[in-house]
């Protein structure tokens, strides 16, 4: 954890210095630091996800965990990218990206909705 805090502080210092001298590189350093820290966060999440998958294996929730994991991944990736766009001053791109992310998650949920409606309709047959 200390190393991630250290990396973030180093990136911050570099950005502050670069903003005063070469401001065009400050954005790139900011983007690189964000990508690296996002990758580190995903690496930290991976063992937890693996443990949950092992616990849920064989239960009725197993098929839904995959959908949830994908939805979570889409949400985090879209949020991360949208924030970067807003930091760069492109809020229009950020909002459209969020719209795409929402559509993607709803598309992911369509088979579940079909299953839910089929479950209710199955009571009549």
């Amino acid at each position: 954890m200390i190393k991630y805090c250290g990396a973030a502080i180093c990136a911050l210092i570099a950005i502050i210095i670069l903003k005063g001298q070469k401001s065009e590189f400050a954005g790139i350093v900011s983007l690189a630091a964000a990508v690296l820290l996002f990758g580190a966060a995903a690496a930290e999440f991976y063992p937890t996800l693996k443990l949950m998958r092992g616990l849920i294996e064989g239960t009725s929730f197993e098929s839904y965990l995959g959908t949830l994991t994908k939805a979570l991944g889409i949400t985090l990736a879209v949020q991360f990218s949208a924030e970067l766009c807003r930091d760069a001053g492109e809020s229009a791109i950020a909002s459209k990206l969020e719209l795409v992310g929402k559509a993607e998650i709803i598309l992911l949920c369509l088979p579940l909705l079909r299953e839910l409606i089929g479950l209710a309709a199955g009571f009549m047959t």
Partner: protein
Amino acid sequence: MTMRRILVLAAIFWLFMLPASAQGTDELYSASDFGADEFLDSIGESLPEEVQELLPADLFDPAAASETGLGFFAKAGLRLLNAALGPALRSFSTLMGLIVAASAIGALKGALKSEQLTAVFDFASGLCLMLAMYGTVVGLFELTESYLSALSGVMDSLLPVLTAVAAAGGNLSSAAVSSGGLLIGLDLIEKLASRGLMPVLQLCFGIAMASGMNGGLELSGVSKLIRGCFSWGLGLGAAAISAVMSFQTTIAAKADSLSMRAVRFAASSAVPVAGGIAADAVRTVAGSLSLVRSTVGWAGVVIIALMTLPPLLRVLLTRLGVVCAETAAGILGLNRERSILSEISGLLGMLTAVCVISALMLVYALAVFSNGAVALAA
């Protein structure tokens, strides 16, 4: 004159020399004479395995009837409870796992800053959790439906035996009334299973879905109202059928006994000496028929009880697990999951009411039948 006297004395002496015997009248009739064996053969496959194992070998034997007392039901109940505990524990552990997963997802949602993305992710996670939760209990709906159909089928098969025993005892009117009342009761159960229960479950399920997916809508009151109306209507229908059948059977039994008394009086008056003896013999036969009647009625009660216990115990134990999971969700602050589990608990409560009311209605009908007096004994 002397010759005549000798002939009369010889005739009297010869009459006393004739062998005479009397037939014992302890067990003139048994349930097998009224199709009990055919009934057991016909329902053999429709009964669940665990119930078939528990049924006594000579169910319609008066000796077996005395052995199927409180101890028998306690043993059967414990055995069936043991069988129902496994699936109920699996459902409970799945629900607790889902609660823990929901808690973890809730913690992850806190990391999301965008409100719109949070709302969509909330929708996706709610959908997954709802499907998984309902998946643990949807099998119980089908179990209850098949139980109601099996119960109706078994009673349909027992009805001819009951009617034959009643008719043999001279209770012609009460046989017709009882069979008519039982047919109405069975029709109610069949209609309930096919056209009542599942649509109501579907409606309540739809309301629970809408309520669960949209946190702003509080529709639990509507669902509770629908379930309450259904259970109340079912209870009222069962009570009405039972009350009408009870009074009609009593009145018909009185009419039958009056008819039999009239017949016996006519027989004893019109036929000297032998008429009175015939009336006493009929009373003895009536004792045997009364025993058969009680035995058949009690056997029916045993079958209904053993058929009702497995689904009832499954539903009750699963409901207990759902209530515990609901409490855990409340403690963890998961309001949406708590409301979904509360709806599921309500649906399981309705299933319990349906099972119990159906079984009690039929048990009451059999009790009225068993306790009715044989008209021949009047």
